[in-house]
C-alpha cells in the first residue's frame, strides 16, 4: 500500500499559497516547507516497557525562507491561519531582517529556482499502525525473552522498534512538491556484567518500509547473545597498526565519517574541507567506489526531495579511488557555482538546513570473506561500532568499535578485544583497502550529527573489506 497524504497538510495548502503570495509581495524570493511527522518508539527491557512519541522528530510545522535583498533569512513556526499571515510577514520584515544589521554581509541576488512538480508516496507492506501497539510490544517482549534464554549469564536484554512517518510539502513560485515517506528500525541488545562493567552487544534492522522489518531480528539473536558473553573475557588491545577485516557495519561508518562528512560542500564554502583541493585525484585504493544519495539506495534516508525542494539524487563521490565530487545543499551550491545534489536536510522544520548525508556506501568487490581472513598473518576482525566523528579539515577519523576478534595465521583465534578506538589519516586508511566482498549491506538505525547537534536519519554500509588501520 502507498502512504496516504497528510490531511493536515492538505488542509493547509490554500493558506500556504496565500502566505507565499503575501511573502513574494514583500521579498524577491520566498519558499515554504510544511511538515507533518509522527515518530513513535517502543522499548522493552528489564527497566520496563515503553511506548510513545518524542518531540524531536515528531510534530507539525512550517519553515519559510525569504531573500531580503542581500541574503537569505528563515522563520520556523507551527501555528498557521489566514489571520496570522500579516503578522508572520511583519515579523520577518520588522524583526528578523533587521537582526542582520550591523554585521557585514556578502550580498547577492537570489538565483532563479528551476521549476519542479513532484508527488511521491512510499510503499509500505505492513504499516506499524496496522500491526498495532499491542502486537509490536508483544513481538519485542518475545524477542527479549528469547535472547535471555540463550545464556544464563545475561543480566538483561533489550528489544526496540521505532518508525517515523513524515509528510512534506514544498511550495515556491517555481516548485510544488509533496512526499509521504516512512522509515522503520529495530534493535536487539544483550547485556552481561563483569566487575562493574556492563558489556553490551547489539544488532539492528532498518529500512524505508513498514514494521515487517522486525522479522529480520530473530535470526540475529544467537550471535548477539554469544558475542556479549565473549565480551566478558575481552582484553585491552595493544595499540598499533594492524591488518584488519572490517564488517559492513563498520565499513559503512568509515564511508560516512571519512568521505561522507569529508565532502559535505558547505564545508567547502567555509574552507573547512581538505577534499576540495583533491577533486579529480586518487585518494583511495582503486577498489573503492562510493555513493551518497536519497535515491541511491532503499533505506532510512530515502526520499523524493530534500528539505530545500531539490530532488533526491545518487552522487558518485569516489570512483575507483578518484575523488569525483562532493554532496551539496542549495545555498552552498549557489556559493560554489555548482548544482545541488539533494542533500539539503534539516533535523526538523525548526532547524536550519545544512549539507547532510543520506544513504552512504561503498560498492562491493570480488573477494570472498574466507580468502580475506586467510590472508592475514596477524590482525583483527572488527565489528559492532557505536559512534564516529569526522575531521574534514585534516582528514582524521575516529570510530569507537565494540569488538575486535584476533586473527592469527589466517584464522580467528577466539580472543576478543574491547573497546577499540579506530583512528588515523583517511587517505592512508582508504588507500590500504586491498580486498572487498561483493555483497553490500546498509544499516540505517543511527543518526548523524553536524558536530554535536542537528540530528538527521542516515544509513551507511559497504562490503566486508580488508585495510590497514590504527587501533588503540
Amino acid at each position, binding site marked *: 500500500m502507498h502512504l496516504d497524504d497528510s490531511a493536515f497538510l492538505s488542509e493547509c495548502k490554500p493558506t500556504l499559497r496565500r502566505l507565499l503570495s503575501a511573502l513574494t509581495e514583500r521579498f524577491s524570493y520566498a519558499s515554504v516547507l510544511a511538515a507533518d511527522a509522527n515518530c513513535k518508539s517502543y522499548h522493552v527491557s528489564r*527497566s520496563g516497557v*515503553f511506548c510513545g512519541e518524542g518531540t524531536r522528530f515528531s510534530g507539525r510545522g512550517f519553515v519559510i525562507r525569504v531573500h531580503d535583498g542581500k541574503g537569505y533569512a528563515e522563520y*520556523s513556526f507551527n501555528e498557521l491561519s489566514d489571520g496570522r499571515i500579516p503578522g508572520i510577514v511583519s515579523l520577518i520584515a520588522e524583526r528578523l531582517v533587521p537582526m542582520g544589521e550591523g554585521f557585514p554581509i556578502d550580498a547577492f541576488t537570489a538565483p532563479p529556482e528551476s521549476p519542479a512538480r513532484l508527488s511521491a508516496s512510499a510503499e509500505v507492506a505492513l504499516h506499524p499502525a496496522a500491526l498495532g501497539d499491542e502486537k509490536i510490544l508483544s513481538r519485542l517482549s518475545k524477542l527479549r525473552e528469547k535472547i535471555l534464554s540463550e545464556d544464563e549469564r545475561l543480566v538483561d536484554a533489550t528489544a526496540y522498534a521505532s518508525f517515523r512517518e513524515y509528510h512534506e510539502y514544498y511550495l515556491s513560485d517555481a516548485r510544488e512538491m509533496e512526499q509521504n515517506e516512512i522509515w522503520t528500525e529495530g534493535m536487539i541488545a544483550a*547485556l552481561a556484567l563483569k566487575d562493574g*562493567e556492563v558489556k553490551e552487544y547489539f544488532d539492528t534492522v532498518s529500512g524505508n518500509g513498514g514494521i515487517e522489518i522486525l522479522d529480520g531480528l530473530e535470526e540475529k539473536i544467537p550471535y548477539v547473545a554469544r558475542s556479549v558473553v565473549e565480551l566478558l573475557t575481552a582484553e585491552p588491545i595493544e595499540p598499533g597498526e594492524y591488518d584488519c577485516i572490517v564488517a559492513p557495519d563498520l565499513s559503512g561508518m568509515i564511508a560516512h565519517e571519512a568521505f561522507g562528512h569529508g565532502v559535505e560542500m558547505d564545508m567547502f564554502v567555509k574552507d573547512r574541507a581538505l577534499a576540495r583541493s583533491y577533486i579529480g585525484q586518487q585518494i583511495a585504493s582503486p577498489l573503492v567506489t562510493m555513493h551518497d544519495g536519497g535515491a541511491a539506495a532503499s533505506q532510512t534516508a530515502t526520499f523524493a526531495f530534500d528539505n530545500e525542494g531539490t530532488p533526491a539524487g545518487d552522487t558518485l563521490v569516489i570512483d575507483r579511488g578518484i575523488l569525483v565530487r562532493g554532496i551539496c545543499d542549495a545555498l552552498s551550491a549557489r556559493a560554489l557555482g555548482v548544482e545541488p545534489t539533494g542533500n539539503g536536510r534539516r533535523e526538523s522544520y525548526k532547524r536550519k538546513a545544512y549539507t547532510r548525508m543520506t544513504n552512504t556506501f561503498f560498492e562491493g568487490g570480488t573477494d570472498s570473506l574466507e580468502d580475506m581472513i586467510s590472508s592475514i598473518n596477524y590482525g583483527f576482525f572488527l565489528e559492532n561500532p557505536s559512534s564516529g566523528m569526522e575531521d574534514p579539515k585534516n582528514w582524521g577519523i575516529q570510530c569507537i568499535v565494540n569488538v575486535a576478534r584476533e586473527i592469527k595465521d589466517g584464522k580467528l583465534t577466539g580472543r576478543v578485544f574491547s573497546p577499540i578506538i579506530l583512528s588515523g589519516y583517511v587517505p592512508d586508511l582508504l588507500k590500504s583497502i586491498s580486498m572487498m566482498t561483493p555483497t553490500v549491506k546498509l544499516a540505517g538505525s543511527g543518526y548523524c550529527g553536524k558536530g554535536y547537534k542537528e540530528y538527521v536519519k542516515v544509513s551507511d554500509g559497504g562490503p566486508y573489506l580488508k585495510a590497514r588501520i590504527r587501533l588503540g
Partner: protein
Amino acid sequence: MTEKIKAALTSLSPAAWKIRDEATESAELFFIRQILDMKRMTDVREYTVTVYVDKTDGEGKKMRGSSSVTLNPGTSDGEIREVLASAISAAGYALNPYFDLADPTTSPVLPDSSDLGALSVEEIAKKMANALFSVDTAADAFVNSAEVFAIRKTVRILTSAGTDVGYVSSTVDGEFISQCKTDSADVETYDSFSYRSLDTAGLARAVANALERVRDRALARTGLPGGTYDVVLSDGLMRSLFSFYTDRANVAMIYPGYSEYKIGEPVDRTGKGEQIDLTLVPTEPFSGDGIPMIRRKMIDGGKLTSYHGPLPFCRYLGVEPTGDYTAIELDNGSLPMAELTAGKCLHVVAFSDFLTDEMTGHFGGEIRLAYLYENGKVTKITGGSVNGSLLDASGELVFSKERYSDATYSGPRAVRIPGVSVAGA
C-alpha cells in the same frame, strides 16, 4: 489549547495525566568568518501530553502504563480526542509496576530573573555575536565560522495530581571553529558554549583561549609514542568525564541492576587520590514532572549520599523523587596545575570526540591537541588516541586547585588519571 486538552482528558478519563506546554522562541545567527551567512527566528509551541492507565496484572499486582503524544496549537477538538484516545490505548499495553505521580506543587509562572530575561532574543544573539568576534582580530588564528542561538522557553507543567507550575528561562548557546593558517599548517579546533547569563566577557575569553589553542595545534607534531601515560583532562572535558559518576548514581541504572552504587558506600576503591565530593545543581526551577529542583549532594567524601533520576524509578526504589539534573559541582582540588602536571604526563585539551561510556567506564578518543610534559619540557602533540578506564583508575584521581566553570560544571579545572593506555601516531 490547554483547556481543550484538559476537557478531552476529562471525557476520556485516563487514570492520570501530565501536560507540558512549552513555547520556544529563538534568534539564530550563522557566520562564515565574520560575514553573516544566515539569520533565523523560531516561534514554536508544543503540548506534550502523557497519559497513564492503571490495570492489575494476572497476579493482582497494580500496574501503570504510560504513553506520550505531541499536539500543536490549533488542533481541532476532534483530533485532540482521537490522538489522546490512541495514546491511552497504547499506554494500556506499556504496563510497568505502579507509581504515583509527583506530589502536587503549585507556583505562578516564575519569570526569568537572569540578565537575559530583560532582553529580546534578537538583542541577546547580536550582543553575544559581537562579543564572540571582539577578539577575532589576528590574521594567523581566527574564527572560521560561528553559530549563535538565543533561546527563550516558557514552560508550564500540569498534572492530574494537582501540579501547576511554570517558568521562563533563557539561554544562549552556540559553537565556533577556530582556524590557524601558517606556511606549514592549516588546522582547526571546535568549541561550543552555553550561558544562562549575558556573559559577553566569558565568551570573549573562551574565544581568545581557543585561538591560542589552535595556534598550538598548528605547531603540534605527530609521533607520540604509544604506551601507558598519566593523562590530564581539563576544562570542558570535565563534565563529560564525571558523567560516569552521575550516570551510575541515576536510578535508571540502579533499578535494572546496571550500577552497583549503594547509598553510604564508597563510589571508588581506596587509593592515592582524592575522595570525590559532588553536588547535583539544578538548571531549571522545576523538573519535567513538576518537582521543585534543589541542590543535592550526591557524593560526600567519596561515599554516595543520593540517587537521582526519573520519577518512576525513584518510586520503585523508595527514593524521594529528585527530577533530572544536567549540571554538577565538584568540591575537590588541592594541587596547583604546575604540580598536577609535574613529571611525565599527557594533558589532552582537544579530542575529535571525547566519549565516556557509563556502562563500561571507558573514556577516550582521538587526540587533536595535547601537551606532553616530560623531563621539564612541554611538547605540543597531535594524533594518536586515548583509551582509559575509570574503573581501573578508581580511587586514584587527583584534582587541580584552580577552578573552571561552564553551564553544566563548576569545579577543579583539571584531573590527573594514572595508567591510561595511549595509542601513538
